[in-house]
């Protein structure tokens, strides 16, 4: 057979196969459509879509379970989820929103500015003030939606827009995760440390164990994501008293940035203050037990050490609990981070136990304006926010629930917010990203074996004040802009109140909230300008 003839036969076979595949695909689509239509007695199926970036274990199962339950309760409705990787979520989101093809419900957070929220999402403040119909038959029946959340639904409120836009699904907290099998090997028991001194003692035992056995064991797996969580809270355990002395409104407005900045400019405190040095000593004590160069590592690197059994402890949030549990070949222990208590060595300025920094619910979902079925989408959103929906979510995701009366799963129990403590003081990065960058650049001089508090301060001192000043220049611009932005809204609402009978009540409520918010924002912007002037004069 000649080469030409063989080529013709092969091409014909290939083309024929392509035609067959296309015909089969076309037939399957037609069959599925017919099957769906007949399943609903000829009624078309309505599809609702949920978009999110939460790819942790259990999350897709949770949304699937909620979808199936909602479908069961609403024949003719299909619920689909679109999980999108975190890194590409912002780009995907804006493409979908601008193109008018966005899912009905979307996780709020990444890639959303307030302007985008106002433009592409529907406010749900009217729903927040009404009972959730999906709570009928429970003790939450008749209770306004916002009051059915542990945090009063604050996690779904956007102060700059004066509206609720989301229903939050979980209340996340940070804890210390332990490899219990390794803990038993090292200490002969499974007792989690209760004090900071015990934590350091355990870390030392892990290092001794590693030396003795030749088995590499990192006491605490660190990264530029995990470590600042632990170190930031350790540091503020020493600066609360200082903060209270600098700012008369410290409890109310922590970290009371303007007073702290003015105090810095006036020499009332500095990076050499005793409280700052005490906080840095705690950081060094903890950081010495993390792997070398941890601030250059990513979150996944630290997690890899832990799940591979090469690290005894890691600090992370409740969002990781199911992923970690399903990945690790050992028994997992979870406990509150033992921050230093008054009287502990290295912590002379501790005023009391340190609480979780917030009880705000997060992982909120909002309703897009482009939804083709807004009433059904609203119903699905309310189902997510109901006791039944949140229970399904909590059971499958193992995340701590956000709705009153929902039982956390066994795994989520240790993550219940701890509020029997203080919030602590302020960090060296109180002013913003420039100060944070200066601290991060110098941090290796604090936590490396040959490092020290002195070496860290020698590196930090030269650029710290100018970094705080740069942060305040940015803060001054943004705070003025925020206060100005409210003026147009205020004027529009003032005009609408009493004129638009359809929206007068809503406009009056928004105006009342706005007047309070705007007055505070205006005052704050002037305080920031004053603090900036003090920082400029302190050159």
């Amino acid at each position, binding site marked *: 057979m000649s080469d030409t003839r063989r080529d013709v036969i092969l091409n014909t076979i290939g083309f024929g196969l392509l035609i067959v595949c296309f015909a089969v695909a076309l037939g399957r689509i037609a069959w599925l459509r017919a099957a769906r239509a007949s399943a609903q007695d000829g009624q078309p199926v309505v599809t609702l879509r949920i978009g999110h970036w939460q790819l942790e274990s259990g999350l897709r199962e949770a949304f699937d379970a909620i979808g199936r339950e909602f479908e069961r309760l609403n024949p003719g409705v299909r619920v689909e989820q679109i999980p999108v990787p975190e890194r590409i979520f912002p780009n995907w989101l804006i493409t979908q929103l601008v193109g008018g093809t966005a899912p009905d419900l979307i996780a709020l957070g990444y890639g959303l500015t307030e302007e985008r929220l106002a433009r592409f999402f529907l406010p749900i403040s009217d729903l927040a003030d009404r009972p959730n119909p999906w709570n009928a038959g429970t003790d939450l029946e008749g209770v306004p939606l916002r009051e059915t959340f542990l945090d009063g639904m604050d996690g779904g409120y956007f102060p700059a827009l004066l509206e609720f836009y989301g229903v939050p699904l979980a209340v996340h907290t940070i804890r210390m995760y332990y490899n219990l099998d390794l803990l038993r090997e090292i200490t002969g028991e499974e007792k989690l440390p209760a004090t900071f001194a015990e934590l350091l003692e355990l870390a030392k035992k892990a290092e001794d164990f590693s030396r003795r056995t030749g088995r590499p064991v990192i006491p605490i797996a660190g990264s530029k994501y995990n470590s600042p969580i632990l170190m930031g809270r350790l540091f503020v355990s020493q600066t609360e008293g200082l903060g209270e002395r600098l700012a008369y409104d410290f409890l109310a407005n922590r970290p009371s940035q303007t007073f702290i900045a003015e105090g810095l400019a006036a020499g009332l405190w500095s990076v050499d203050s005793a409280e700052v040095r005490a906080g840095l000593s705690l950081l060094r004590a903890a950081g010495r037990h993390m792997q070398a160069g941890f601030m250059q590592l990513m979150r996944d690197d630290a997690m890899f050490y832990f799940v591979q059994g090469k690290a005894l402890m890691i600090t992370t949030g409740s969002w990781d609990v199911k992923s970690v549990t399903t990945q690790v070949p050992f028994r997992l222990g979870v406990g509150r981070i033992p921050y230093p208590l008054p009287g502990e060595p290295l912590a002379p300025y501790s005023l009391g136990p340190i609480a979780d920094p917030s*009880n705000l619910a997060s992982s909120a979902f909002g309703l897009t304006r482009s939804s083709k079925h807004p009433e059904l989408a609203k119903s699905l959103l309310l189902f997510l926010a109901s006791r039944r929906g949140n229970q399904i979510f909590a059971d499958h995701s193992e995340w701590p629930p956000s709705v009153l009366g929902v039982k956390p799963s066994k795994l989520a129990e240790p993550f219940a917010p701890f509020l029997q403590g203080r*919030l602590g003081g302020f960090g060296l990065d109180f002013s913003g990203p420039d100060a944070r960058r200066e601290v991060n650049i110098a941090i290796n001089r604090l936590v490396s074996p040959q490092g020290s508090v002195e070496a860290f301060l020698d590196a930090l001192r030269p650029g710290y004040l100018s970094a705080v000043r740069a942060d305040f220049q940015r803060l001054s611009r943004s705070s*003025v802009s925020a206060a100005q932005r409210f003026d147009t809204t205020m004027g529009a609402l003032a*005009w609408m109140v009493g004129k638009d009978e359809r929206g007068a009540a809503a406009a009056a409520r928004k*105006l*009342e909230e706005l*007047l*309070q918010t705007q007055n505070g924002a*205006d005052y704050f912007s002037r305080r920031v300008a004053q603090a900036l002037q003090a920082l400029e004069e302190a050159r």
Partner: protein
Amino acid sequence: MLAVAGPTAAELSQKPEAFAGWEQAASLLVREAYEEFLRNDTLPTLEREFGLGLTLMNLQPRTQHNLRRAREHLEHVAAQTEAPDPLHALARFFRARLLEFYLLPPDAAAAEAEYEALLELRTGSPVIEMAASRLIMLAVFSGAPPERIHQRLEELEKKRGLLVTPAGLREFHTTMAYALLDTGGSRGRAVDHFLAADRQGFARMASALRLWCTAGDIAASIGRVEDARYFYTQALENLPRDPRAFTLRERLAALPPSLSPASSP
């Protein structure tokens, strides 16, 4: 509340587009609102011009050219109307805002004079009553010596008599309390202002909590035990799950027992 001139409710129900621009402006959609006011020639001329002035204040990019145009629109509306037409006072109020907070260089003296005059109109509008708070801020952040600021704050205390709306009163008292604290004024008077603000009620619990915490601490610091107890208790009763609750309970427990009758509401 503003008594509003313009189309009746029946007219509006036939013309729902009459509110499109206002709804967009109220939702931070400034560009859309501005274009709607430009496009919608069914709106009364002065209302439309007021809308253009308001939106030009925050149209991005915020240029001095746009701000000057905003000022022209607002000045024209103010000149073409008279009190008690609510447009008159609103246009003057936002013109004053432009003068003190937007245009370069700011003209604090002109804004101050305008705010004083607006308060004398006694409009009964909570927005116009914010002029009293702005006068306090202009005084506190004027850069004048403390004794001059305190003298000015004394004068401004009298503006309270011109205010009638709960929001106007609450913001006046709150701003005055912080002004006294920030300028080393009387802590006792600051506590009195916090109490007066609290009597007006709050729309946002987050703002209320901040006030109760600060007011409680200031009252405790000068030995006004019952007032401190009142503020701390308010905070705890309204927001028992707030992360500050532990500290508030500690501070409440640390207050000495009462020796005199409560002076708080």
